[in-house]
């Protein structure tokens, strides 16, 4: 497991490098004027990512003298990270489908019951109050319609 953590760190650095390389590749199709500043910045960033990669490698192998070894990474709570992403994805889906009034309310109810293990009463009350507050702000106070979601439109 100890060997796996630096790999994850490298995956993130690699992702940055791939993104930057893609930007550089994409900039080749641009005119000289449009590509001028981006290419300079992208090339410099790519170079610096490489330098950081070497520094990270050096630190791990203890090659770079005079530098402190980076503290050992804490054990990654991978499952909780994935779960948090799922919860945020659920909020996004609820908002996308049901809009800004009902989507967050439904999400709050599911979150309070599923993640926080709150009581039925609190979960329902929290969600209803949330929907009312959002409605009050947008519909009555601002007299504008908040994002309504794609589901009501599909049903009509």
């Amino acid at each position, binding site marked *: 497991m100890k060997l796996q953590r630096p790999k994850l*760190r490298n995956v*993130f*650095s690699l992702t*940055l490098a791939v*993104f*930057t390389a893609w*930007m550089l590749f*994409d*900039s080749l199709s*641009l*005119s000289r*004027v*449009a590509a001028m*500043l*981006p290419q300079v*910045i*992208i090339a*410099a*960033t790519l170079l*610096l*990512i490489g*330098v*950081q990669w070497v*520094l990270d490698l050096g630190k791990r192998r203890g090659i770079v003298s005079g530098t402190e070894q980076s503290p050992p990474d804490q054990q990654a*709570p991978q499952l*909780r*990270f994935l*779960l*948090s*992403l799922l*919860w*945020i*994805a659920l*909020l*996004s889906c609820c*908002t*996308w489908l049901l809009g*800004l009034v009902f*989507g*967050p309310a439904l*999400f*709050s109810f599911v*979150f*309070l019951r599923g*993640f*926080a*293990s*709150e009581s039925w009463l*609190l979960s329902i009350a*929290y969600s209803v109050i*949330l929907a009312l507050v*959002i409605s009050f*702000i*947008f519909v009555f106070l*601002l007299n504008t319609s*908040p*994002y309504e979601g794609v589901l009501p439109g599909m049903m009509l």
Partner: protein
Amino acid sequence: MDSEVLTAAYEGFGLVFSWPYILYPIAGTLLAMLFSAAPGLNSSSLMALAIPLTYAWEPLPVMLIFGAFLGGATFMGSITAILFNIPGKASNAVTLLDGYPMTQMGRAKTAIGSAAAASALGSTVGILILIALIPFMRVAAIALGPAEYLMLAIWGLTTLAALSGNSLVKGLVAAGIGLQLAFIGYDPRTAELRFTAGMDYLSDGLSLVPVLLGLFALAEVIDLMVSGRSTLSGRQHQSELSGDVREGIGAVFKNFFLFIRSSAIGTVIGAIPGIGGSVAGFIAYGHASQSARDNSEFGKGDIRGVIAPEAANDAKDGGALIPTLALGIPGGSGTALFLGAMMLHGLTPGREMLTDNLTLVFALLWSLFLSNWITSLLGLTLVNPMARISTIRTGRLLPAILVMAAIGAVQYRGLISDLFCAVVFGVIGYLMKRYDWPRIPLVIAFALAPLLEINLHLTLRLQELDRIDFFSRPVVLLLLALTIINLILPAFLGRLRAIRRLKK
């Protein structure tokens, strides 16, 4: 300062503090506070709503209430930034960098106390500078051209060296990524589409609000869920929240010269049209970090990281009115809406505004001054109820924070895609935090990139046409000197520290 200006300042003061006109700044401030505390809302939406409602009013009440709208919103956004890591406005984003770690350390009250004091005093400094500058406003605003804007952007970027934490290379990479992200969308000169990967959403470029919400608010939510902390502060009871409002206020006076410098930075940046308030806070933060003898605690809960951006953010409101009133060029969205309201009431910015309507200008300034003080004082009284929120169980607080972030992202431009964008940046922000990649340089570079690119093109073109001589412009040379100082200072201070250590 000529007597005409002083007379107008006195008359304007008398108008604001007379009955019933005093009600306008008070009501305006309360409305601005309410709007800036509500998710997805800000003073700009309030001003947009108020323009048709105030159409039939006399110019004086309009100036008073809009002055209050301009000044009343900033500090409430700082409270949410400090307590929940959610900036009320983009300009409050920098406050969370040290404000939120202070909350996590149980020093929420101290952070809010110093933010309130820096905010109120910063606005006062900004307004005083504005009053002093009124006679020179027209001349000074005309003197700034693309070359000066370009140097200003470069100067801002050089502050990144001090904000890179333990690794300068990582900080520079983050800044590079921030610049790259800002290049997405139409090229400002040729209108070519760049780096959109065929996605229509990216044609207009990435918006700062979802990027910030993702990098900071959602990233912290993920971190909170992964960490498994039971409350936001890690403490169970309000009584355990240490921190003292008076200590926070005192810290502003202890760091008085930093406060003055930050206020001056805020006023100057605010006076430059089109840059926006967020840059003022970031540059002041960068300056605070760079000028500090020991900047190792910046980003981890250093009170100077709260004082500097707060002073700059509120001082910039005064500065932002300089180009608006003198040239009719708004400094940001708030002043743009204010300009619209002025026009509707037959008030034309420019020389006429600064001569025939000078009393109205001062009424506006005093209203701005009053609203900043009301906001800070009221905000301080709300510290306890708001600080208590940080001891609420995470499970109960997280849905509210997530929903606030979602509403903020979607309602900003009315695009659901902004929410998806915020989620992507939430993951990036969390990974950056986890693997010690600094997020601040990314955000600063992202905010400064348009200023850099547009003015680079303009300056090069003007240079080609022999319309300007870059190195003969005094403001350019001044900014160039500041840039060189920014680049040399960290190395110099580092060497100085090393020598001191050796001597010890």
